[in-house]
């Protein structure tokens, strides 16, 4: 048993840190740290910096413009990026569509699409969920009917994250209604400026706009935009779900958040003593810290399994389950620590009107926003179902 990283891995970590220190724009890091939404330009700016360095498409093989990293290197990069408050790159083009095309796409699709993901020409978003279907992909209703060399698409997608910045969407659509419900699904790429495609914002609980609905009304999509074979969409969707996902436990984010908590707890006072010395907070912070320390080891264990080719879907479910719980606990602790000062909506106040550190002023909206962690991307109930299925098999 050996917890340590190899010399090469440690050198890599140093390199990543240096890179982040020298290249991550300070204003961007400050916004990320305070839980504010980034502008599209800011995200693209960071994307460009990463792409120039060759560190953007972390999961792609070198031949397609990825850095050719090992799972451990990806982990180190994700951890350091989170700790430095670098923007989390939207995964839709880089970590979802990219790997799908690399595995299932035609040569033409790869040549045409992958470079545009890297250079920011295309911003992809995801059309999986539908109203009333949630995590139940088999029941999806958006239809794509073949008409000559086009599909005619009708239906509605929802929870489309950052769709407002996108010009393209990849969708799961129903191309057959016979047989098992899973068997009639296809994976289709759609230009958002196709006539009949309309995007509407969904405002989330914290007031922010990060997800959208997309409506399809007789939208005509060329058949060459089909990825893989017709009715192969379920296989592709499963590949994406069980595909090793870096940083699913969000340990780096939790570590950063807990560090911020400790700093805040020193600065804030409650009834005349620092929150850090308040026994209730101190105890809870200590226990969460133990949980997070364990999680970071659990994460490495699963990472080592992935490195050794032994990880399956159950591992990523366990990571997501506990990882999101810990992250949400930290954000609850952070919000709680502010006491009455968590109440005012920071949007209404200028910096010099705040009585708490700027970083902390959005603690409550950030807490509410992050209730999504246990819902989106396969709710924690779905994750429990997945693990239970494996556990009670046979």
């Amino acid at each position, binding site marked *: 048993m050996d917890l340590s990283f190899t010399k090469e891995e440690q050198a890599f970590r140093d390199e990543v840190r240096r890179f982040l220190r020298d290249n991550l724009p300070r204003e961007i890091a400050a916004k990320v740290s305070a839980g504010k939404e980034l502008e599209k330009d800011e995200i693209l700016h960071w994307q460009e910096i990463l792409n120039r360095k060759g560190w953007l498409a972390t999961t792609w093989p070198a031949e397609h413009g990825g850095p050719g990293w090992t799972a451990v290197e990806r982990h180190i990069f994700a951890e350091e990026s989170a700790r430095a408050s670098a923007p989390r790159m939207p995964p839709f083009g880089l970590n979802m569509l990219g790997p799908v095309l690399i595995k299932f796409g035609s040569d033409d699709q790869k040549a045409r699409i992958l470079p545009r993901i890297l250079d920011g020409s295309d911003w992809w978003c995801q059309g999986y969920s539908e109203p009333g279907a949630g995590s139940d992909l088999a029941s999806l209703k958006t239809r794509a009917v073949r008409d000559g060399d086009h599909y005619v698409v009708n239906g509605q997608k929802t929870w489309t994250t950052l769709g407002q910045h996108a010009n393209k969407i990849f969708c799961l659509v129903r191309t057959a209604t016979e047989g098992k419900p899973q068997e009639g699904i296809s994976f289709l790429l759609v230009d958002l400026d196709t006539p009949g495609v309309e995007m509407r914002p969904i405002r*989330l609980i914290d007031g922010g706009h990060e997800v959208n609905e997309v409506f399809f009304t007789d939208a005509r999509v060329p058949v060459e935009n089909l990825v893989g074979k017709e009715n192969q969409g379920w296989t592709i969707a499963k590949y994406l779900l069980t595909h090793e996902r870096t940083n699913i436990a969000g340990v780096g984010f939790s570590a950063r958040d807990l560090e911020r908590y400790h700093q805040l707890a020193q600065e804030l006072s409650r*009834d*005349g003593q620092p929150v850090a010395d308040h026994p209730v907070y101190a105890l809870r912070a200590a226990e969460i810290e133990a949980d997070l320390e364990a999680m970071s080891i659990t994460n490495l264990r699963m990472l080592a399994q992935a490195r050794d080719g032994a990880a399956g879907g159950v591992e990523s479910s366990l990571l997501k389950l506990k990882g999101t719980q810990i992250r949400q606990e930290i954000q609850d602790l952070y919000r709680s620590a502010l006491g009455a000062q*968590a*109440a005012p*909506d920071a949007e209404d106040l200028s910096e010099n009107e705040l*009585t708490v550190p700027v970083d902390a002023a959005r603690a409550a909206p950030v*807490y509410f926003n992050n209730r999504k962690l246990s819902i989106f991307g396969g709710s924690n109930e779905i994750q429990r179902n997945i693990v239970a299925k494996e556990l009670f098999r046979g």
Partner: protein
Amino acid sequence: MEFNLSEDHQMLADSLRRYLADNYDIETRNAAAFEAPYHSAETWSGLAELGVIGAFLPEDQGGFGGTAEDVSVIFEELGRALCAEPVLGALIGLRLLADAGRDELAAAVIEGRARVALAIQEPGIGCDLDPLSATARKDGDGWRLDGRKSAIYGGPGADHLLIVARIGAGGGQGGSQDGTLGLFLAETPALIDAAMVDGGGIADLAMEDLAAECLSEDAGAAIEDALDLGRIALCAEAVGAMARLIDMTVDYLKQRNQFGRPLASFQALQHRVVDMLVELEQARSITIRAVADYGSDNQARAVSMAKNLIGRAARHIAEEAIQLHGGIGMTWEYPGSHYAKRLVMIDHQLGDKNDHALRLIKLQPRKDAA
């Protein structure tokens, strides 16, 4: 032993519920709650006309109620309708105004002609008033106040401000403080207004040589009393909001299908809703205890128990409700998300569950009540 509402209280509850159902849907609420002045003058007049404000004072102070039960009956309905009007600030302010014998101004507040709010908290105060550090000093016939006040509920747009400041203190937050807590009245000075995250108005106040009139030079006990009544109000409000949110959750699970069957048929979800219901019953019970013990020797203990238990229960119910709703529970458009926000944020008002746990620990255990 009687847990049903009296006929009068039932009528009060019914008329308030009807008024809010007819005049205060979630769109009306959200339109008012998040834009300055963070409340609706129309709704406010409506509530005053219904007698909601007057019910906070006893008859000998010009009201028509004044018991903790009056307060809890009203706030449970306000919670059920997720009312974001500045009723809490009015309740606390009005009680102190009346205690100070300001009958005329109190009458104006009752009738909705004036609004009053209380500036007591300061950054870093939970529910212990000892570390309050704003100061008051005599200046000729009047007084001058200095210091920072925060968490002035209903402050935006209030006509009058009651301000708590320390008289005869060395000053400086942190240690035990000398002097007494004085209660002062001022036309509302320039405030730092904001919406609360969960809607409704809140304000801060930076005082420098602020001129004010002194209502009482030693109001500590009256303030604690008014705050405890405010805590009871928050508990009752939480009970109303929890009950409504659980109803919404049950309805949603019944009507929504996944994997070809209603969500309500999934046992894991059923059991979680049952646990929410258990917490609601507990929250209702401890609020009853606090209402019953208001004004007794056991007041502080019962109120802190209630605030602590409800802080825990409200967070649990809010988080579970969002989770059980899935994506829809995360949206601004769905009313349930605003209920959940209110339930979480209610613990940030007038001392949270941890503050009240510590207050409980400091209090003597209760003498055998039976």
